[in-house]
């Protein structure tokens, strides 16, 4: 009875009291020789009250809640895989359960190393298709961030219950690119160029990306 009451109380907190919100940051620093570093950050700190309640339960809204150990295991799996990947070095990660922030970063010799790693993960998940996020042409100094919008994403999202969709309401996706040289032109007008013209940033609501209203795709021409 006590456990039942506690469970009901927690579900009440999760479902109707606490709000949820998260942000993802993709930060790429690209050097002239094509090498660079990437840092991915998942920050759910604004939802920490909700997540703390969720973590006390086995399942919520029909979804199994992973334990902290399972989350850490997933992250360390990625770290192991990254360490083995061709052209990847200096792998770092943090998992902070006080603020619910996870980061994963590494250095790469060329952006194709990141593409190959993403493709290998994609393949291991038995997903079809190619996974190519970045392109950099050393000669022309043209950097491309690929993003092929799949209408299935919107279709799948619309099958979610409204409570599940609400998780994405205020979620944002931020991309930051840093270069050694100045940016001369760029294709995505939602991106902002820094004062130094050597960095670009774009912050988009995740729901806009899912619904195809915005895209992180960008072609950036660097000065030669």
């Amino acid at each position, binding site marked *: 009875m006590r456990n039942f009451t506690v469970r009901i109380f927690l579900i009440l*907190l999760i479902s109707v*009291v*606490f709000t949820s919100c998260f942000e993802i*940051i993709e930060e790429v620093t690209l050097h002239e020789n094509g090498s660079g570093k990437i840092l991915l950050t998942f920050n759910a700190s604004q939802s920490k009250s909700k997540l703390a309640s969720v973590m006390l339960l086995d399942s919520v809204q029909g979804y199994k809640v992973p334990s902290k150990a399972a989350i850490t295991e997933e992250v360390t799996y990625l770290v192991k895989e990254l360490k083995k*990947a061709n052209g990847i070095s200096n792998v770092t990660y943090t998992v902070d359960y006080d603020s619910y922030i996870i980061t994963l970063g590494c250095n790469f010799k060329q952006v194709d190393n990141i593409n190959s790693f993403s493709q290998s993960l994609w393949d291991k998940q*038995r997903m079809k298709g190619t996974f190519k996020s970045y392109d950099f042409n050393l000669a022309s100094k043209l950097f491309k961030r690929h993003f092929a919008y799949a209408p299935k994403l919107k279709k799948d999202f619309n099958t979610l219950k409204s409570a599940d969709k*609400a998780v994405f309401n205020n979620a944002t996706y931020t991309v930051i690119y840093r270069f050694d040289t100045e940016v001369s032109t760029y294709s995505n007008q939602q991106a902002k160029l820094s*004062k130094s013209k050597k960095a*670009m940033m774009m912050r988009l609501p995740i729901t806009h990306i899912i619904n195809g209203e915005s895209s992180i795709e960008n072609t950036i021409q660097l000065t030669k």
Partner: protein
Amino acid sequence: MKKFLLCALLGATFSMQSQNTIEKVPQNANAVVSANGENLLELMSVVELDESLLGKSLIPMIQRFSETSTSLADAGINLNASTQYFMQVTDSITYHVVILPVSNSDKLEVFFAGMEGSEIVQEQEFHTFGGEQTAPVMLWTKEYVAFVNGVLNNDYLNKEEVAARYGLEVEEPFSLEAWLAENAEKEPEETTVYPDDTEVEEVEIESVEDVEVAEEVVIEEEVIETIPQDSTAYDYEYDYDYEYEPAEPSENDKIKKQLAAAWSFAKAKEYLRADGKSSILKNKEYRKQIDDKAELSLYMADMSAMMEAFFSGLSGYANLDATMMSDMYKEFSLSNNFYINDKDITVKMTSNFSDEMADMYKKIYDRKLNSDFLNYINEDKAIGYMAFAINTEETLKVYPKLLTKYMPNVPQLDTEVVDIFADLFSLLLDEEAIGDVVKGDALFVFNGIYEEEVTYTTYDYDEDFNYVEVTDTKMEKVPDFLVMASSDDTSLLNRLIAYGVEKHVIENMGGYYEIDTPVDVPFNVYLTIKNGIIFMGNSSESMSQITSGNFVAKVSDAHKDMLTKSKFSAYFNADRMSQELPVEDMSIGEMKMVLYLLENFGELSLETSKVKGNRMEGTYKWTIPAGHENGLKYFFDVIQNMPR
């Protein structure tokens, strides 16, 4: 037959004293559920029922077989009389029975024939469906319908002499040990081994700290297999047209099926012919517990037979539970009377125990809720509460006795081991000392939802989009709760607090303490001890008011009585909840539904008495919101007007 059950449900809800269905219920029925159609129709007429959502969905079903039908009453069932469900347990079979009163047998037969699509045959005064008889069976006369589903007791039928009597083969009972042993010996016939081409070095996980791997990883040249984009390597084809063919029933299954049908058929005749001379109305205990004025009632006689039948019916290893449960529920009976009134729906529950169990419960519930708790409830603010009062010392003394009484009956357990465990339990625990620390009464109060400033981590970007982590704040809705428990000896807790303060896991906030909980919880937790009451909650304001003696309490006599005179009590005010519930993040549809349900829920309360004699009583009271004629119409109104 499923369609019949729907009609039975309708009949069960609305089905004259001239047709006394209760006289068909045998004196020794183990469980009886009665729906008093006459009383229910006083609350809602047949015309009103026909016009309800339920009526509008069921009448077309009747019209399919009888075009002239315009009312639920046209199905031939007497909605103005009582309907009974009962269960009768015997050593070989358990009967689940529904008795319905008939108003017009011609209409009824048109309806039944249409639903079942089979011919109706007559044998003496009984009518039934033609063809092979299988359980469940349905028989009817000009006045009553009997639906009987017989469930065989496989354990009984598996006894050698019984099996021989019916030409059954004795089946080996399921043995978990044998199954495990058999399966452990089996080697898989063929094992597919997938080569692990990724030899991975074990990495020690440090959960929260940064992990840096500075050195360059040396990559050996390797062939990476990639999947071509048009690969169909992961496409599987399934034969969706495959039809599952059930196995041919064994000879035993065929005999059992015949037995269940024949016994159910014979029993249905017996029930329909019953003249009331040995009905449940001759059962003194039933008469004592069941109120004729109740709209609905439930009676469960000595539950040990029911428990035994249920658990042994599970077959095999569940027998250990059957024996234990049968013993535990010996002489335990239960009754519920449902009263649907103008302003509320009340359920009066009565539990009757054996002398021995009553004596145990008397000791366990020998505690009253600390009346000082009432100084910390403000009913203008509280959305709900839950309280209980047990005697911790006596509960700890009773527990080993229960163990030694029931556990040795479990065949797999050694009596001596159980005795030793029970003695050890008593020896290791100082029941009196524990009873002083935690007396056993507690009150949980849910005081609503308030806004609290919480911090979170985000990022500050400079003009070159370099960013640093910053702490920001936002207002968050937090539930306000307070838990109270009595203690005669708080010295241990005081020492724990002092130790926690020393180790910086507890912070002294000036009379009360903030606890750094070992498990992440979504709010701050505060603790204080005052006048033999341990307080725990998440509102620093309430804690401060408690310690300074400025807490404003308000409790009406009704709540005071409910809390202090009950062993277990609970209360929930849904309307107040609807006023405080944050709906900003809900979709419009969700918001409409949640607010509609809460605004139309009313108040719910539960209270239980102490054990008097061998009996314990409890009352559930659902106070319905204003604007409804009575509790029954309230239900129909809520369903009818639910946002869609």
